[in-house]
């Protein structure tokens, strides 16, 4: 099935009619809304596997199934290009058509009939329609977020992708440290940082490396154990003087190891 994009005008109209469509967002469906018509959307080259998309696992209070669902969305949109995946109009169409049950379970407080129109409009904008803001698209659109999670771990190595996804998504702050600092982590540092996380995850999937308390003085300075925030801070410092694209990720991992060793040497002293 070719991929479909909502037209910009359709997105603008949807955003201005959230009040009229409130029931559809809270308990209904957009399947009969006419979003498939040429007036509302257009097709482009590429393919989407709708059957696979329909297998999304519905989140519960104690498990969002984010690694599993990232794999499902990536599989359903396996052939799209990064250019297409950066276009919020495509994600707007599929999120509205196929993502409503998922988003109601993922963000239940935001999709209540008692919520104000303003709050619901903000939630619709954030999780379905968000136009023209790549960072918010990757962070908040329900399907784009899942696809990009899988994209970045597959860029590193498709063979380790399933396990690296589980390490990346071990908590939202860990994901944010690596995925939401695009400029800082545009180098091999991103790859090395995630490979280091995978190494720790394989040692113990409840490793205290993933426990990184925040503090106003900076977690890296006050933590009693070495954690991913210390790694992120170290890579940030290192990238200020060293070209991390020249170094191989394995070389950078060695430097992270030395930084961890020196941390524990300081703690012991």
């Amino acid at each position, binding site marked *: 099935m070719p991929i479909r994009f909502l037209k*910009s*005008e359709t997105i603008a109209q949807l955003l201005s009619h959230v009040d009229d469509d409130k029931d559809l967002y809270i308990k209904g469906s957009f399947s009969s809304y006419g979003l498939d018509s040429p007036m509302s959307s257009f097709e482009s080259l590429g393919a989407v596997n709708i059957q696979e998309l329909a297998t999304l696992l519905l989140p519960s209070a104690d498990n969002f199934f984010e690694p599993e669902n990232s794999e499902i969305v990536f599989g359903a949109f396996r052939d799209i*290009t*990064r*250019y*297409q*995946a*950066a*276009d919020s109009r495509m994600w707007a169409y599929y999120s509205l058509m196929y993502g409503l049950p998922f988003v109601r379970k993922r963000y239940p407080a935001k999709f209540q009939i008692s919520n104000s129109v303003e709050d619901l409009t903000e939630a619709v904008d954030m999780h379905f329609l968000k*136009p*023209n803001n*790549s*960072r918010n698209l*990757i962070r908040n659109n329900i399907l784009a977020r899942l696809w*990009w999670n899988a*994209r*970045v771990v597959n860029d590193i190595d498709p063979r380790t992708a399933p396990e690296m996804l589980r390490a990346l998504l071990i908590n939202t702050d860990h994901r944010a440290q690596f*995925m939401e600092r*695009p*400029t800082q982590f*545009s*180098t*091999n540092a*991103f790859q090395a940082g995630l490979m280091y996380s995978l190494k720790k995850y394989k040692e113990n999937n409840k490793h205290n490396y993933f426990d990184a308390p925040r503090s106003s003085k900076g977690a890296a300075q006050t933590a009693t154990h070495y954690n991913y925030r210390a790694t992120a801070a170290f890579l940030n410092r290192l*990238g*200020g*003087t*060293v*070209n*991390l*694209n*020249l*170094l191989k990720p394995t070389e950078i991992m060695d430097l992270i190891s030395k930084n961890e060793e020196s941390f524990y040497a300081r703690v012991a002293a």
Partner: protein
Amino acid sequence: MRFDPKKSFGYPVLRKDSSDYVNADISTSIELLETQDSSHVYEIEYHVMIGVRDIKDAIRSRDLSLVLSFFCPKTLYSASFVTQDLTGRMPIDMRNIKGDLFIEVEVVVNSNTFNLRSDRFNPEFSELSDSCVLKRGDLVAQGWPEKLFIEREVFQSVISLFQWAPDDEMSDGVWKLLAKNESIQIVANQNQIRHLTSAQLTKDGRAVLLNSIILPAIIQLISTVIADEFDESALWFKVLEQKLQATGDTINANSDPIALAQKLLKFPLAALNETLFIES
């Protein structure tokens, strides 16, 4: 690595607008070129000019390397090329890029240790006795960061930016221009839009549209840029800017919007000369 000519590394780093070296400079040029082979693979052509012989010699001897790094924030795409050639071309798949593509050009220590020396060091570094020892990955020279803006629309005609937008409160025969961030909307009532979309289907109709709608719209947009009443992040501005750069033009306070708009649209009157003005 962030470019900051004021930043001190504790040793001289050759950069534009930095005084770490005297009578020496680094400059770069980056161009995006179409290829014959593929519609989506382009080439980035780069030239790096380095005014310090010791650095150039060390690149030739592989003690130093040139590292070109690319990063697109919208698609999280990054790539880097390590080379000894100060001039070259490298392929880039445009399906990976959307919006801004940031390009960094750096000269970096490639060997495990490197003795940086030059008679061009600023005298402030006199304690280094004309040399200092650096380690692998350390920065030696840094070009001014470059940025390309890449949207499909940039490689298509300016006309592809235009969209018809219905507004049934408008009368027949009336239209207005609405410059959005992602598109340029021509607003008219549904009936008028039907006429306009029909006109697009014929060569004569396209020539008329080009002269009656597109040309005045582009003149108006250029005028808003001249008056500094526009949003620099707007797609239409970036497309116009890049199209004009390709012809060696820029929009400034002295620009003639009528002349620039005609140039951008490849002289629309010629389209009428070839269609409606042909003498039978």
